């Protein structure tokens, strides 16, 4: 069984933000909500490195563990999704997520946040596939069309990889071998608990 994974090759990431806008484009994510973001370490200094961060679809997802209303589920492809009908916007998944993936459309007094929104690996949510409800709540469902997340598909340098863990690891391993370096898989172990 395929197990969907993201992998950001930090040696290739050039902080161009294509993943961010591709996601906005595909899912019409509103201003202020960023399902994906690019973080730069050592900005402006030698050794500067960036990675694109979104939901890593963890094997043992902390968000799911702490959700008071138990609105998370994992698909058979290993994609962590959530049910916005259940979400109460408590913010707990945001505290628990190591990657800061959960986002809220608001951040107001009295803890009013709106429903949590996060990367769906372009796999929609618990609504009828390609229905209007799925679109408005979760965005498009590319996986169901046999496509992969648009952020990775549009990555300017093919730094961001997405897909079945075996293939992703394979492509990445080939690059490492060409470079003659050692793997620098960001977040892989934290999210999936195993080596690339």
């Amino acid at each position: 069984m395929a197990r969907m994974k993201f992998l950001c090759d930090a040696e290739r990431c050039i902080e161009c933000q294509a993943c961010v806008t591709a996601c906005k484009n595909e899912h019409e994510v509103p201003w202020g909500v960023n399902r994906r973001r690019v973080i730069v370490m050592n900005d402006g200094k030698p050794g500067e490195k960036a990675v694109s961060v979104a939901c890593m679809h963890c094997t043992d997802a902390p968000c799911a563990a702490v959700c008071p209303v138990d609105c998370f589920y994992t698909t058979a492809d290993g994609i962590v999704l959530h049910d916005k009908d259940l979400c109460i916007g408590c913010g707990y998944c945001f505290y628990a997520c190591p990657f800061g993936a959960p986002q809220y459309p608001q951040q107001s007094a009295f803890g009013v946040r709106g429903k949590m929104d996060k990367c769906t690996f372009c796999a929609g949510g618990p609504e009828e596939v390609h229905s209007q409800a799925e679109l408005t709540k979760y965005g498009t469902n590319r996986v169901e069309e046999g496509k992969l997340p648009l952020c990775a598909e549009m990555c300017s340098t093919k730094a961001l990889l997405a897909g079945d863990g075996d293939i992703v690891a394979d492509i990445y391993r080939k690059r490492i071998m060409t470079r003659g370096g050692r793997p620098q898989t960001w977040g892989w172990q934290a999210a999936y608990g195993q080596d690339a």
Partner: protein
Amino acid sequence: MPRKPFQLLALIVLSVMITACGSDSVTMYEPGVYKGKQDAAASEEAAENRSGELRSRAERGFADR
């Protein structure tokens, strides 16, 4: 001592809980198991169906041509 309301309430609650556990229409919590609205696209079968397509998509999209 008005014990009666207290006892009555305890009884009611207890009986509700017991009947709930035995009913088919009630979702019981199980750690790590999501029991909300079902996503048809999340099923094993659906995932199996598209896995080949997704594999070739990944190879087409990410391997250096």
